[in-house]
């Protein structure tokens, strides 16, 4: 048998073809490795670093704020924030749905926050703060699904004094894009002061945020810490405010609308600064929910307004000592000169009525202040003229901002003919001067301005700058009013309380001696034969009282304004008395005639104080 050997040459040839292909393929792989690992290595290395490193913001705790006695006005408490790392968000829609389910906010709001976070994609943003335990647990449970989310310990502003100091401490809010661009130390989503002390002293209280660079794994878990740059906490701040008095004022003003301002007349240190109605400052300690913000903004009683420096009122009779001082200083009146009050006086052919229908008889300047005789001041205004009245008001700081550290202060209004032509389009009517003489008509002040003006009356004639931090005040400016003039005016204000016919004589029995001046500013024309108690709330007069103590060497001036309070001596004066008594160590509860107080109600458009025909200006003290 012949053995035929199988010819393997074709098979071998084809095998070599395979081999050649594969050698080529191995070469391609090696070349690709060279390109990835040698040529492009830095690029891929940086991507790997991005994968594993996370820069976490460490929020700086804001500075501690205490009152003049060391009591805590504001501090911080631990809270947990939810951070979003926009770069790692794969499906924003899914994340938004999850965050909404967590109950952080309404879907629209969540959407807005996520969109805001995406604008600064390289840095994490705070999506929510003050997480509840349940929310933290839910985030932790879904960590693998939502690696862009991280729960982060932080602090939250706490205001133990609550609504009583809400306007004073002000609000925190998320840093604006403009602020972010201006200051590189700020972080997206960081909270900065938006009003009050938080805004004015942002530089002091804010601190500098730090950084924590951590290594995370693919599930977003922190594996280790690579680098830590600790935050620099904000500096502590001591206020001139006395929390005891602030609380007392809040108690006295409970249920009322208005404000209380107390300053030390010697240097302008603010002791009390209260605006009612107030709000819970914790609402603004973190990231605000727009719904609650909207409800505060929509409230007709305007709880967000700081009435102490943003609300304008005609000063009413509280203007009288100011004009009295001016008249004495410029020789329009002498202390001995008196006016006979019959209850009505006719000027420019119009009858101007004194609040006391029967008249006060002979009224000297001191007595004019004591009994708040309108006739005396009608005559005074007539003799002085608008220009001098305005100068006297301006000399005591009315018509311009007091310069307190807080933002949003109003300048008020001291009228002039030029002002009338410019803003009202008609010349000043001579009759209006007579109304202005008793603080009615187009003259508007803030409670804080009133406090500063009275401080100058009782501190020897120096205009102080009200301030909330001891070193915040400027040196007092002399007004140049003769001390003898001021002494006369002060005697008149002492008689308001101590005198037999003083309009606030009910305060004479207080454990501390005080002095001051009542004021009622008219909201609407008075109806004949209708008692103020019978008017609806929004038609009642504003009740004002400025008091100070001790009368000889005053260390505290307190202004109380109760909107639509109706009556100065029975509504506003007791509030001031209560605070002054507290300041000098006495707890007094002066019964405010609660029955007389109507509930504050909505007033669509406040009737402007009468600036028109003079015969309307008939006003109670």
């Amino acid at each position: 048998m012949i053995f035929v050997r199988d010819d393997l040459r074709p098979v071998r040839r084809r095998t070599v073809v395979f081999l050649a292909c594969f050698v080529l393929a191995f070469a391609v792989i090696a070349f690709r490795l060279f390109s990835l690992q040698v040529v492009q290595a830095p690029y891929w290395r940086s991507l790997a670093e991005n994968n594993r490193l996370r820069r976490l913001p460490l929020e700086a705790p804001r500075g501690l704020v205490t009152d003049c006695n060391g009591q805590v006005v504001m501090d911080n408490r631990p809270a947990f924030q939810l951070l979003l790392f926009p770069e790692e968000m794969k499906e924003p829609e899914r994340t938004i749905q999850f965050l909404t389910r967590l109950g952080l906010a309404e879907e629209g709001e969540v959407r807005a926050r996520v969109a805001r976070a995406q604008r600064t994609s390289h840095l994490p943003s705070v999506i929510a703060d003050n997480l509840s335990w349940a929310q933290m647990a839910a985030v932790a449970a879904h960590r693998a699904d939502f690696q862009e989310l991280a729960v982060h310990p932080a602090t939250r502003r706490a205001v133990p004094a609550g609504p009583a100091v809400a306007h004073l401490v002000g609000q925190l809010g998320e840093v604006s894009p403009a602020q972010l661009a201006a200051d590189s130390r700020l972080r997206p989503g960081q909270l900065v002061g938006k009003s009050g002390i938080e805004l004015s002293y942002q530089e002091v209280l804010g601190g500098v945020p730090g950084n924590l660079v951590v290594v995370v794994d693919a599930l977003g878990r922190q594996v280790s810490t690579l680098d830590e740059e600790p935050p620099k906490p904000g500096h502590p701040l001591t206020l001139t405010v006395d929390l005891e008095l602030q609380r007392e004022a809040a108690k006295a003003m409970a249920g009322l609308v208005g404000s209380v301002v107390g300053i030390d007349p010697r240097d302008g240190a603010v002791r009390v600064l209260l605006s009612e109605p107030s709000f819970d400052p914790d609402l603004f300690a973190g990231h605000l929910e727009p719904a609650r913000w909207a409800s505060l903004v929509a409230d007709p009683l305007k709880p967000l307004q700081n009435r102490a420096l943003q609300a304008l009122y005609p000063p009413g009779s509280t203007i009288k000592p100011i004009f009295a001082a001016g008249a004495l200083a410029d020789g329009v009146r002498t202390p001995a000169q008196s006016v006979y009050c019959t209850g009505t006086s006719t000027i420019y052919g119009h009858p101007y009525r004194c609040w006391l229908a029967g008249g006060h008889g002979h009224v000297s300047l001191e007595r004019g202040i004591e009994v708040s005789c309108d006739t005396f001041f009608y005559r005074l205004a007539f003799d002085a003229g608008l220009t001098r009245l305005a100068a006297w008001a301006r000399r005591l700081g009315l018509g311009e901002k007091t310069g307190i550290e807080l933002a949003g202060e109003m300048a008020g209004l001291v009228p002039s003919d030029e002002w009338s032509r410019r803003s009202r389009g008609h010349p000043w009517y001579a009759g209006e001067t007579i109304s202005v003489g008793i603080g009615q008509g187009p003259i508007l002040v803030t409670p804080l301005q009133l406090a500063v003006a009275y401080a100058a009356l009782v501190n020897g004639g120096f205009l102080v700058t009200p301030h909330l931090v001891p070193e915040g005040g400027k040196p007092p400016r002399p007004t140049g009013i003769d001390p003898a003039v001021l002494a006369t005016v002060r005697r008149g204000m002492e008689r308001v309380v101590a005198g037999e016919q003083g309009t606030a004589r009910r305060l004479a029995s207080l454990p501390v001696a005080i002095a001051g001046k009542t004021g009622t500013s008219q909201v609407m024309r008075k109806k004949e034969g209708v008692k103020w108690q019978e008017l609806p709330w929004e038609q009642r007069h504003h009740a004002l009282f400025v008091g100070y103590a001790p009368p000889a060497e005053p260390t505290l001036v307190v202004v109380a304004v109760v909107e639509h309070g109706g009556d100065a001596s029975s509504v506003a004066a007791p509030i001031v008395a209560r605070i002054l008594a507290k300041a000098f160590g006495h707890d007094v509860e002066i019964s405010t005639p609660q029955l007389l107080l109507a509930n504050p109600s909505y007033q669509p458009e406040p009737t402007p104080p009468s600036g028109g025909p003079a015969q309307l200006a008939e006003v109670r003290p």
Partner: protein
Amino acid sequence: MKRLDLAMFVALLPILVCSHLLQSSTARALAQPAYASRQLLWLVLGAVLLLLFAFSDYRLLLRLAPLFYVAALLALAAMLFLAPLRAGTRSWLVLGPYTVQPSEFARIAAILAAAALGARHQKELLAGRTALQLTAVVAAPALLVALQPDLGVALTFVPILLAVLWLGGLPWRTWVVLALSVLLLAAAAWLWYLKPYQRERILTFLEPDRAPAGAGYQQRQSRIAVGSGGLTGRGLRSGTQSQLRFLPAQDTDFIFAVWAEETGFVGSVFLVLCYATVALRLFAIALAARDRGGTLLAATVAVVFTTQTLVNMAMVVGLAPTTGITLPLLSRGGSSLLATCISLGLAQSVWRLRFANL
């Protein structure tokens, strides 16, 4: 021993050492220490099997091939009904603490059967009937595996078919017809067979930025791992991509990326060279074989081993879509390792008996 191909062992040894180093590295990253020790056991067992088959007579095995083949088909068919459903497929048999993947062994049976069949036709060109027979022989087990469904393993049957058809000498006209039908089949598969995620994988490969979060994520993380290794790597067990688990399937499909990240260009090219050497030796064995059966057997083993290696590496470096094809010898998995060792042992047997009388 002297009759075995020592060069292949010289290249295999570093691969097996790497395999153990990598398995302990990924076991640490995945917090599964048992993975490394179990894989070491498989490595030892694999080495024993390699030697065992190296000293067997491949001619006897080729003669018994139909027997193995039928047994394999029966086993695969039985899998469809008996195997538990694990991770969506019926490809695993559970034996106590171990799982076995019979499809890996069925592939050896298919190689043997195809080589045996191919050896019977000693003509320069392959007759159409034989070509059909070969196709049927390879396609039958591949379809059964695809039904499990385990597309990754099913795809590894394709190189077997290509190898035996090419080596047998299929006329070029038939290649054209074949290529067209493959295109048709691919289109049909795209439309009716591929699952959405598989389509997504292919699309993602063609357009990497298509879905950075979904299917593109694996490829991207793999490229980051490879690229961040740089020239000399980040050190064993110090690769951030693997140790912090950004790299998916790091103990199986993407294990080469771990090596590339931790040892850099130097280490990865070294490993590529080792694999290339093994492949080269397998082809050398095929060229040195005494008979047609040996040539076909060794060459088929070489083609299967090399394509699997290349496809996996290409996937890791971003030159091929994610297919679920593992890297022979390196990826975790006992069955795959043992099957690879057996096939290498068969090749060694061809080499050992290259001077034997027919």
